[in-house]
């Protein structure tokens, strides 16, 4: 069986790379211990700092096509419990679960002494590492903390340096996606001496508006404030930002991937883009800690199938396969093929191609003049249906016109009904750079 045990950022050991991200699921020692019992390899404690006061009504979500919580938004702040309580519980968890990773997420005012104090106390409590919360985009940022730090590279370097002056355990900086170029902040963290990065924190968001009261959600006494967006909806954004920092030679730090991870598939994707561990929050908030069982089981099964013995065996494997557009092969050509034996006749590919793509899928119009009546045995000679799609409902692809955009394949509800097939153009590989002679 593959081995999922991990050593992250130069010394954080854990039985598997699945960590709970800093948030409601890691609010107290009892929760974290139950999470470890369920199988989680590590937990980043709900951000510790001077206790705050929260508002009531804190989350809102985006549902999609009848599924709940495709995206989740929150306006909850850091811990509302005293620093001493959190640290005492960290000590207790570490005593009972010495092999699991407990990371202290920290956020205090931007004073050197204050940061020194909280770092020392956290490490004294037994934390295996530190995560500086420079990413929280709501509430705390209005007080000069969270993303207010993470959006300014100089502040990021400065506070990271302060922490490194006293830290004995690995130091992670959690990045906000609410910047123009996440690499600038990642480099700043590197300059300050960070040992690793966590990415991404939540994305500024307003999830929706109640169309009866006109109040955006979540409703706090008739008003709302922007929150931080997470959950399945943000995964593609998170993957891109992780790839940006993982590919940047000036960053070169281990990454704990965060953003829309619900199962082993997303975890594998983040690891393929270079992450050493992954962090999960929304999925655990939705379904509970138990989801980690299939994350571990599914990842191991997949690794077995692919012949990977450890996380290292596939970590970063997809990074070389992401390049700039200008380097892509202009002579690579695919076209859509519709396999009539699998087609159910929904014609979604036809209308998608016709209205949304390149007008190269065609259907033959059926007979519109016929009068439809209810078939009744005593009045009609009933034609027994053979259960097959009527031929006139199976669309055709004009391959000469098909540009290989994938849209029909994406909208087709039937697995394997439309395939994208490579066509030999007889031309050698040639990129835009090569064709135009521009410097790559």
């Amino acid at each position, binding site marked *: 069986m593959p081995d999922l045990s991990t050593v992250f950022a130069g010394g954080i050991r854990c039985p598997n790379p699945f960590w709970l991200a800093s948030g409601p699921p890691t609010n107290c020692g009892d929760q974290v211990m139950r999470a470890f019992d369920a199988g989680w390899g590590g937990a980043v404690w709900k951000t510790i700092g001077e206790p705050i006061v929260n508002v009531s009504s804190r989350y809102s979500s985006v549902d999609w*096509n*009848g599924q709940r919580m495709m995206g989740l938004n929150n306006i909850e702040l850091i811990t509302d419990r005293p620093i001493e309580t959190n640290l005492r519980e960290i000590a207790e968890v570490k005593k009972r679960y010495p092999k699991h990773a407990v990371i202290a997420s920290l956020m205090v005012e931007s004073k050197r002494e204050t940061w020194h104090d909280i770092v020392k106390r956290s490490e004294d409590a037994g934390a295996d590492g530190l995560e500086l919360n420079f990413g929280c985009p709501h509430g705390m940022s209005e007080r000069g903390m969270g993303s207010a730090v993470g959006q300014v590279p100089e502040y990021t370097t400065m506070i990271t340096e302060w922490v490194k002056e006293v830290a004995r355990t690995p130091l992670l900086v959690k990045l906000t996606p609410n910047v123009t170029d996440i690499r600038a902040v990642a480099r700043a963290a590197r300059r300050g001496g960070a040992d690793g990065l966590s990415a991404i924190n939540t994305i500024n968001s307003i999830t929706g508006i109640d169309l009866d009261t006109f109040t955006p959600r979540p409703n706090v006494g008739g008003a709302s404030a922007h929150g931080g967006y997470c959950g399945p909806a943000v995964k593609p954004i998170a993957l891109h930002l992780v790839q940006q920092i993982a590919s940047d030679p000036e960053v070169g730090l281990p990454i704990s991937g965060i953003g829309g991870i619900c199962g082993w598939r997303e975890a594998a994707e983040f690891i393929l883009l270079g992450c050493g561990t992954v962090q999960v929050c929304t999925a655990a908030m939705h379904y509970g800690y138990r989801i980690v069982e299939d994350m571990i089981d599914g990842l191991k099964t997949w690794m077995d199938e692919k012949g990977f013995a450890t996380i290292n065996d596939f970590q970063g494997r997809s990074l070389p396969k992401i390049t700039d557009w200008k380097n892509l092969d202009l002579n690579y050509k695919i076209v859509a093929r519709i396999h009539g034996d699998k087609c*159910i*006749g*929904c*014609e*979604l590919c*036809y*209308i998608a191609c016709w209205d949304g793509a390149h007008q190269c899928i065609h*259907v033959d119009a*059926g007979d519109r*003049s016929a*009068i*439809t*009546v*209810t*078939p*009744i*045995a*005593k*009045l009609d*000679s009933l034609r027994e249906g053979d*259960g*097959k*799609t009527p031929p006139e*409902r199976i669309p055709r692809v004009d391959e000469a016109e098909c540009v290989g955009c994938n849209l029909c394949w994406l909208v087709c*509800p*039937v697995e394997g009904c439309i395939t994208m097939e490579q066509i030999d153009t007889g031309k050698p590989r040639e990129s835009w750079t090569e064709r135009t002679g521009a410097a790559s």
Partner: protein
Amino acid sequence: MSAEALPLARNLERFPELHPPLDAQAALVEANRCLYCYDAPCAAACPTHIDVPRFIKKIASGNLRGSALTILDANILGLSCSRVCPVDVLCEGSCVLHRYNQKPIEIGLLQRHAMDAFYAKSPFLAAGPRPEAPARVACIGGGPASLACAAELRRHGYAVTVFDDRPLPGGLNTYGVAEYKLRPSDSLREVELVRSLGVEFRQAEVGAAVSLDSLDQNFDFIFVGVGLGAMERLGIPGEDRPEVVDALRFIAHYKTSHETHVGRIVVVIGGGNTAIDAANAARRLGAEEVHVFYRRTEKEMPAFPFEYEHAKVEGVQFHWLAQPVEILDRAVKFSATRLAAPDASGRRKAEALPGSEFAFVCDMVIPAVGQGRLMKLLAKSRGIGLDNGLIAVDRPTGRTAHAKYYAGGDCVNGGREVVDAVADGKRAALAMVRRLEISRA
């Protein structure tokens, strides 16, 4: 007679709904399952061509009123159709998900969800603007075909009067559909919607209280939607005994009267959907045994398979290859039959076997052997052609041999479903509108 006098409480208890409605959350989940096919087969399979994906996506988007209006735009009797349509052989039968190893979308229940929401808010529909050249149309018969014809004409602004010879309008929707599928009160709500469009209703029999001549004088077009009239007679001795009640009369009685007599052992004669409706009703009204006799076999039976299955669950017993030869006192004398080779139409005729007669003891007989066809007056006085007892029309327009007369529904199609009658009525109305517009131009 008023709607308040209907035996609603008893029938709610004896005939609880066959298919309970979807609640809002279930409707949303089901609506989201719809693929939203382009040029969808379900819409093509509907005789009225309701734009099914469109109304389903409006349920998913939370636009229930828009969903209902999409349905009503194509089919003014969307409420009753959502309850009585044999969706297995229509919209749901053509759902592409059948070919994807999935349950078809529950289109009937979704349509009902939209219609129930619509009717929950005392609805009305606005008539179309008064046309430049106004015209008046009379609809004879108060059933689905006439209602659909009248509604479509009002949407184009023309004046319509419906003449109906029963105490309440609605035709078989009010009097003839099994109670666990559609209640008269729901049929009457649809009548009220049609009335809200400005259709005038007169409960008066044409040919008696109102003469055909007066219709000819006062109306530009006349639509005939009179249905099939009474059930066919069996044509055997003893048929006039008091314990013989034809199926449509039996059904109409229990739907509209508080006192419906039913025997202890009931024999139903026939193999159609009406025979099954009557058999199920007899069971639910207290008959200990209900026996359906059909002269052919299960395979030739015209009833829909799901209706047959349902009747078996109700406890109805079926007897094949037997036809009645005489109604006796507290018994029916049957003759056994055998099936001959298929004739030109492909049907196998049932032939009585000599010497095979037997008596079956019972205390009530319900013949349900198809409806008779009473259009003789029209044929005689207006030269409207009949074809095998049905009014002959040009199918796309519903126009008869007499230019002023159109027809649709059971009296044309021989007795199909509510949705077929609606489609007939709508087509005829649109054909009249086209002719009026052409004659004006």
